[in-house]
């Protein structure tokens, strides 16, 4: 684990830790909570052959949409990619492998890795098309499907206010997958609009405790898509 007193770093250094071929969780449901600055730095640094795990594919021209468009992403694990025309084309052309899960199961699979368990049981989707991919067992007379945890090498998350120990708070509907992903990856890189000294956040209001976060970088809201785009997803 990164020392508490060594987490604050530059965006270049933080993203340079990611090698080609890495699996990366990316926070956000649509734009809110998407770590746009970290993703743009990843685009600039050129890592390729990536596996991304994100609820959606953003839109074609922002966030992970840019990485997909630039051909950096081999595989995407998501819940819904309907708002990214390019991602759908790449999927249909066989250039982007896409694995999709119902949204709540995706969230829970990520959290499951985040709490250090190998999987969970569910009754969701038992009588639907998704059941065909899954192993089922009986528990107390009920049929259950096994959902393995989804883990990643890295997580890129977007926080509102953080402290230099790596404690994170999120705002509004930008919470979404961020606190789950912040537990589920080996190396967690957080961007925050504001970075304060330890002790500035109320202990009860911290959404992601410092223990889960390896690197924290401060980003200017004005450089993020949150600040400049006109339409939500």
């Amino acid at each position, binding site marked *: 684990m990164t020392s508490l007193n060594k987490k604050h770093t530059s965006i270049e250094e933080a993203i340079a830790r990611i090698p080609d071929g890495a699996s990366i969780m990316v926070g956000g*449901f649509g734009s809110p909570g998407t770590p746009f600055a970290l993703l743009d730095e990843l685009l600039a640094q050129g890592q390729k052959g990536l596996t991304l795990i994100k609820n959606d594919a953003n839109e074609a021209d922002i966030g992970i949409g840019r990485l997909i468009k630039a051909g950096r992403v081999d595989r995407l694990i998501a*819940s819904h990619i*309907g708002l990214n025309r390019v991602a759908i084309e790449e999927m249909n052309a066989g250039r982007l492998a896409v694995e999709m899960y*119902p949204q709540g199961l995706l969230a829970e699979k990520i959290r499951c890795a985040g709490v250090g368990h190998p999987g969970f049981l569910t009754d969701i989707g038992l009588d*639907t098309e998704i059941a065909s991919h899954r192993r089922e067992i009986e528990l107390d007379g009920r049929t259950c499907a096994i959902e393995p945890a989804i883990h990643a090498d890295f997580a890129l998350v977007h926080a*509102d206010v953080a402290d230099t120990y790596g404690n994170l708070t999120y705002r509004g509907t930008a919470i*979404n997958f961020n*606190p789950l992903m912040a537990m589920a990856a080996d190396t967690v890189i957080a961007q925050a609009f504001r970075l304060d000294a330890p002790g500035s956040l109320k202990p009860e209001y911290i959404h992601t405790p410092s223990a889960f976060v390896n690197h924290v970088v401060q980003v200017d809201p004005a450089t993020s898509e949150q600040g400049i785009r006109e339409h939500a*997803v």
Partner: protein
Amino acid sequence: MPSDQERILARAAREILPGQIINLGIGLPQRLFHYMPEDQQVLVHSENGILGCQPLPDDATPDYEMIDSGGAYIGASPGASVFDSALSFAMIRRSRVDVTFMGAFEVDQQGNLANWKIPGKFSPGIGGAMELAQKVDKLVVLCSHNDKRGNPKILQQCRLPLTAPNCVSLIITEKAAMEVTDQGLKVIDIAEGLAVDELRAATEADLMIDESQVGRF
């Protein structure tokens, strides 16, 4: 005279009781926002992680970190909470959402619903629909009675991949409000001016209609 969609929405709004928690699917259901009675202390759940979203006034500056699952900028009602996606779906799977309104490609007289995939044509992923359909006690389908070519959408048996089996409680179209019962599809209300024969002709599903009981809307 109201448009077809206005007729559907006005009828649908009658399914919302004071103090309930409801979820509005993408598209037509989201417009229910504007049909809800004032001061009913209803909280609208959106599965991206908010309980208590409300439409923004037209002249409001949007908060870029506040959207609903359809991507519209929203505000927060008094008593609203925001939370992560795992908690959001806990609420759904634990049936703590009272009513969910959804669109449909097809719906049938067993209450099966298909609204996420057209094999070979459209499969952007199921999002949150499967869990909402399977776990919310009352699922109200809001859709046009027929597709753009005039084919029935209210079927004897869905043909497309299901969102969930046996999940629909009520179907509201511009032509009728139909309840899914153990015996089949029971027509509760018929649109003003529509004859029973016209309704049957536009529908593939078998309809139970007791004309003495049927309301108009």
